[in-house]
């Protein structure tokens, strides 16, 4: 499954861009994506925490990606 992972803030800087194309196996979960990200970008493990958002909602680790999902990596927010 071809996906485009959106990135913001410090993750955008780690990605060196606002998004990253990534090939994920069919049936891949959020947890699998996190493993992949942490292996490709070990700096991610140093964050206080981070979330994955799917279609503009925070997603659980167990969520299975579907085609057309909008996927984003959300480092610790700091609005206000």
């Amino acid at each position, binding site marked *: 499954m071809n996906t485009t992972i959106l990135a913001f803030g410090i993750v955008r800087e780690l990605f060196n861009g606002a998004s990253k194309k990534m090939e994920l196996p069919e049936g891949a979960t959020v947890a699998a994506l996190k493993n992949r990200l942490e292996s490709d970008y070990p700096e991610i493990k140093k964050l206080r925490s981070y979330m994955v958002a799917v279609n503009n909602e*925070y997603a659980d680790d167990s969520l299975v990606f579907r085609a057309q999902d909008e996927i984003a990596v959300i480092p610790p927010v*700091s*609005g*206000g």
Partner: protein
Amino acid sequence: MIDVKITEELLSAASCTEGLTDGACGGLAVFIGAVRSETKGKKVLRLEYECYPSMALKEMKKIAEAAIQACGAKQMRIHHRTGILYPGDIAVVVVAGSPHREAAFEACRYAIDTLKKTVPIWKKEVFEDGEEWISAHA
């Protein structure tokens, strides 16, 4: 009434009352977040805000709805600025209107506290000798 907005334009005090003091709500509780000139004794040159617009607006709307449901506010406004901000610039304005001031204060407090936890907006502080994404690391 719910009014959420993310903008690169200046936020001003006018956002605190515009369209809200219509005689329906006796009390408006407002939080105004402005850029501080110092963090832990270090001079701040500027703040760089970015956001995930579609999701941020969705989360801001959720917060406004929850503040109305849980606290009994009647009007909620959440305006957030993004882009490059300098000390003294207003980054966020939260307004809660209610016939009763207790409800307005609770709703306003809830909204700014929750915004800081859930809304995908990020800021980088830029100092004379470096920069830092706020809250990124423990």
